């Protein structure tokens, strides 16, 4: 069953990656990057459940925060630069 979780998350990553590569505007790419990192966090937690050890859960917390920092930084960048 956990294999199905990884398969679904992999498909999610592919779809987000398509939008990341394709996205017409910079906001689209940042959006897709946001989703990619969230998918990675979910995959990390699924892997933790699979192995039964929570050693890497701190990485999930840090990734969530870095995701926010990058999104807000680039939003401010778009504010200043126009597009």
């Amino acid at each position: 069953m956990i294999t199905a979780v990884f398969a679904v998350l992999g498909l999610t990553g592919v779809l987000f990656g398509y939008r990341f590569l394709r996205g017409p505007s910079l906001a689209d790419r940042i959006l897709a990057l946001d989703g990619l990192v969230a998918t990675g966090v979910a995959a990390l937690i699924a892997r933790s459940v699979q192995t039964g050890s929570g050693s890497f859960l701190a990485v999930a917390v840090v990734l969530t925060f870095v995701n926010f920092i990058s999104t807000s930084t680039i939003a401010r960048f778009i504010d200043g630069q126009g597009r």
Partner: protein
Amino acid sequence: MTAVSHLLLLCGASFMLLAAVGVVRFSDVLARMHSLSKATTLGLVLVLIGGAFGLRDSNDITYLLLGGALQFVTSPIGTNMLARSTYLAEGIHHDVDDVDELADLWSVDEPGA
């Protein structure tokens, strides 16, 4: 307990897949943002609850709670900032939504624009 954990993980992953489908298929940046922020938060929270059922160590569950709280706090703020900068850069389609509460701000910022 393991079955419950795996079921919740699968539900959360499915919600993230739905978010990704919305991000690929919607036609507008703001519509994509709408799909991403809500569905991803719900999916991630379901995954975190599934992880809490699967791990059952108080240390790990504290990490999961912290991750969920961070996602809940940061996702609306980041999306709001991104939507605002998108509006200022490109505007919105007025055939979608009549109400434009930022219009006053825009005309104060740059008169005549």
